[in-house]
């Protein structure tokens, strides 16, 4: 951490909590699943820790929520609650739905033109 970095960061008292909406959603999913008892906070901290300590993690912490989401996916797959293949299939479906949605309208999964064929 450079002096200017630290100074700049230390001075930001009102910075936004999340820089993009998906980060807020990923954050809230973890809180909601913990409150529901799907995993304990210790389990979560271990999963997150393994991710943020990964050698490829960004030195400035800018990929923190990328790591957060990877930890969540990993934990849910490990617990057998979510199949990795389903995550990939639905991610692709959401991308297709986004492309098929006219600009300015909300992106809905139903807009995926391949929904009938893929059944996701």
């Amino acid at each position, binding site marked *: 951490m450079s002096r200017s970095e630290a100074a700049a*960061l230390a001075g930001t008292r009102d910075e936004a909590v999340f820089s993009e909406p998906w980060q807020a959603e990923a954050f809230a999913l973890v809180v*909601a699943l913990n409150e529901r008892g799907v995993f304990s906070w210790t389990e979560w901290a271990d999963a997150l820790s393994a991710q*943020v300590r990964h050698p490829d993690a960004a030195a400035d912490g800018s990929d923190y929520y990328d790591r957060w989401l990877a930890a969540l996916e990993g934990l849910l797959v490990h617990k057998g609650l979510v199949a990795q293949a389903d995550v990939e299939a639905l991610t692709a479906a959401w991308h297709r739905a986004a492309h098929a949605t006219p600009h300015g309208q909300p992106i809905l999964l139903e807009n995926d033109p391949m929904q009938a064929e893929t059944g996701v």
Partner: protein
Amino acid sequence: MAHDHDHDHHHHDNDLDPMAARVRALETILTRKGLVDTAAIDTIVETYETKVGPRNGAHVVAKAWSDPSFADWLRRDATAAIASLGYAGRQGEHMQAVFNTAETHNLVVCTLCSCYPWSVLGLPPVWYKAPPYRSRAVLDPRGVLAEFGLILPEGQKVRVWDSTAELRYLVIPMQPDGTEGWSEDRLTELVSRDSMIGTAVALAPEAA
């Protein structure tokens, strides 16, 4: 009124950021399984974006400064004392208040990941979650504090507290001189987020 400006009628595709698409995929799966519901997710986001923040912690500190019996309670059982003000942790974690003195300055870090006392400080700042702070706060706390512009007197020790999923720390900074008898509200203004992590001290009355 006539709309005489040109609307852009090109049919641009929407693009989802790859991470945004992954979150939506996960949320879709979990919703279908009945493990989360969208309204609960929205409430959590709203709470952490607007309702929970360092003002809560500043309230705790100001009360500790102005009410010795509360300060005492905070020392003995911070979890209960803080909960009495309506700030309860959501993950069932325990809180410990660490009081700065002329002899000891306290600094909080989470070397493992980013454990942080959300209920009183909101979500952690970017630097708290970044590897340089997590690794250097323990190895070279004085160097880190200097980068935050905080030079401690030589005789003051630095004690570093490493947070865990079960135990989170709140630094109670020393009350600035010349603020005895101030109201809690006024005192709250002197308590910054960083002073409750330990990378700053409370503001002097003339600076607030």
